[in-house]
Every structure is written in C-alpha cells, then in structure tokens.
C-alpha cells in the first residue's frame, strides 16, 4: 500500500520536472529574437535558382541535403516495411 503511494509521488515528481523543463525551453525559444538574415538571403537569391516557388527553391537548392535526408528516410522506411511485413511460406 505504501509502495503504491510512493510510486505515485515519484511519477508526479518526474512529470512536474518534465513540465518545468518544457515550459522553460518554450519561454526561452520565444524570448530570443531570430536574425532574419537567412530568409532575406533566400529571397534575394531566388532568381538565381530558376524557380518561382520559394518553398521548392529552398527544398531543392538551399537545403538540398535536407531533401536527400528525407528521401533516404522514405527509402529506409520502405525497406523496413518490406522486410518486416514479409510472410514466410
């Protein structure tokens, strides 16, 4: 009986600790001001990419490594699904 109460107290303490961490990080990220040099750079160099769509230009020119990572993620996911869902006959 006492062990259950102790468990509940420990879980409550852990959850409160996690909540404090998350709230503090959220307030920290909202209190800092981001520099807008990067977005201005993307907008100024948009004609050089040959694309009108800003999102597509960022995905395939400025952040092409990001797209490569996404493609590899899909590839690894499909490989895992095909391997794990295969049924032996």
């Amino acid at each position, binding site marked *: 009986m006492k062990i259950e109460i102790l468990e509940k107290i420990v879980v409550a303490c852990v959850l409160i600790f996690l909540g404090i961490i998350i709230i503090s990080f959220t307030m920290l990220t909202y209190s800092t001001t981001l520099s807008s040099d990067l977005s201005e750079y993307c907008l100024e160099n948009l004609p050089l*990419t*040959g694309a009108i769509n800003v999102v597509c230009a960022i995905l*395939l020119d400025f952040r092409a490594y990001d797209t490569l990572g996404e*493609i590899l993620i*899909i590839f690894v*996911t*499909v490989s895992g699904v*095909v391997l794990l869902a295969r*049924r032996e006959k």
Partner: protein
Amino acid sequence: MTSRIVKTVTKDLLPFILLFGVYIILYGHLSPGGGFQGGVILATAVLLVVVVYGIGRFQKFIPYLTVAETVGVTLFVLIGMIGIAYGKQFLVNFGTIPLMNIIIGLKVFVGLLLMYLFFIGWEVKK
C-alpha cells in the same frame, strides 16, 4: 463488397486524380506543390483503385515497385554528383529543380504505394 456507386465514381474520377498529381509534380517549381505532394496524390489514386477493384491487375507490376524505389534514390544521388563533375559542390543547382521534382515524385509514389499495399495485407511471394 463495394457498391456500384463507388465503382462508377472511382472509374470516372481516376483520370482527373492522376492528372492533378502529375500537374502538381511538373509545376512544382512554378506553383505551390512539389514532388512529395504529387507523389502522395498519385499513390492515393492507385490505392483507391486497389481498394475498390481489388489488386488483380496490379499484381504483376508490384515486384517492379521496389526496383523503381531503388532507382529513384540512385538517380537523385547521381544528379547531385553532376555538380562535382563540373567542379562545384555536391547537390548544386543548375536548372535541375524540375528533374529532381520528377524523381522525388516517382520515388514517393512508389514508396508510399508499397507501404500502403503492405499495410492492407498484400504479401511478397519469395
């Protein structure tokens, strides 16, 4: 299982869904859209046919889907390596955005279709 209404609507809507997906892929650099979104639209179109009409006619095409997935990844990396051949960095852009959109669209279409088919119970015969 499926009613005549669902079959008729699927048969009539399928060309427009496929056309819309191809449009999203090919005009990705000019209008909102891109390879990922168009690929998902194409995959859902084929999945609709599979759910409504059964997998019968698509059975023989399915082993080629894994090949297309691998070819898509390889083509993307090779197009990135063209920049190295011209003395610039990896994945440099010199007008290859539509080509990359097409490759990404093919790859996402094939990959998501494979995952959908596995999740609805299709199985690989060894």
